[in-house]
């Protein structure tokens, strides 16, 4: 899948690398800003109370 992506990226090897880096950073931004905050309530790490919704 990554090989196919690499083939589809335009330009020289340097341009391809830069675009790939930008794509990676975009994915990281989406994860940090939207995905991780949305899933963290469903993970056990922050369930620290013994009443209400915890435990």
């Amino acid at each position, binding site marked *: *899948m*990554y*090989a196919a992506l690499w083939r589809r990226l335009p330009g020289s090897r340097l341009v391809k690398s830069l675009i790939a880096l930008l794509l990676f950073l975009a994915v*990281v931004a989406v*994860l*940090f800003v939207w995905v*991780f905050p949305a899933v*963290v*309530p469903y993970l056990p*790490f*922050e*369930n*620290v*109370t*013994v*009443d*209400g*919704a*915890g*435990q």
Partner: protein
Amino acid sequence: MAGRRWRAVVGGIGEVFITIGVVLVLFVVWQLGFVAIVDSNAQRGVVSQLEAQFAAGGEGLPEIPLTPGGTTTDPGGATNTPKVTLEDGKVFAILRVPRLGGPGGPARSTRGSACRPWPRAWAATPDTALPGAIGNFAVAGHRAGHGNPLIDIDAIREGDVMVVETRSGYAVYRAQRHTIVPPTSVDVVAAVPQKPGVKPTEAWFTLTSCDPRFSSTNRYIVFAKLERVIPRAEGLPADLLADPR
């Protein structure tokens, strides 16, 4: 041809696993790095805003009486005069523990929503005493994550100063002892710590966080006793918040 297809399938599965691995690493970076930076900035912002509000007279903030008789609805059965209601999720106090360094954090009441992540460092436990009052003022805060507000809670020693600043003034507590208990030991926030049902005669402050560090298996509890209350007009003695380290 069959060999190439087989290689593509295996390679694709490998890429999926690598992707999952990278996402998990990114999650750890997010939780321990990104959130810590964002939240400690937010906490500093809340503290300086609260300081400015206190300096301007504290309009709109709860006025917590400095007489040790003033408590809220206290399960230990203490008197309810005068009654101050803390609004859910509203910041009302700054906690300063010189041993932990830094400007301390704002405390807020989280009645009914105590399990939500607390980006504001710590939260007062619902239905415990008000700061400075007879009974037990209980506060819980994150050990790791969210700016690591209580990462060094185990450094607090007997006699350490712990100041709760509200609109009315300062409740000065001194740490007495600590204990490590399972999360189910809710008697640590009883009106008389670890003695549920006993009528309180002293003003306690219980600070709770997770233990061990980066885990939430147990709870690290620090019990502090009220030394005195100081009205805002009088101000804190200059050396009280000196870093003991």
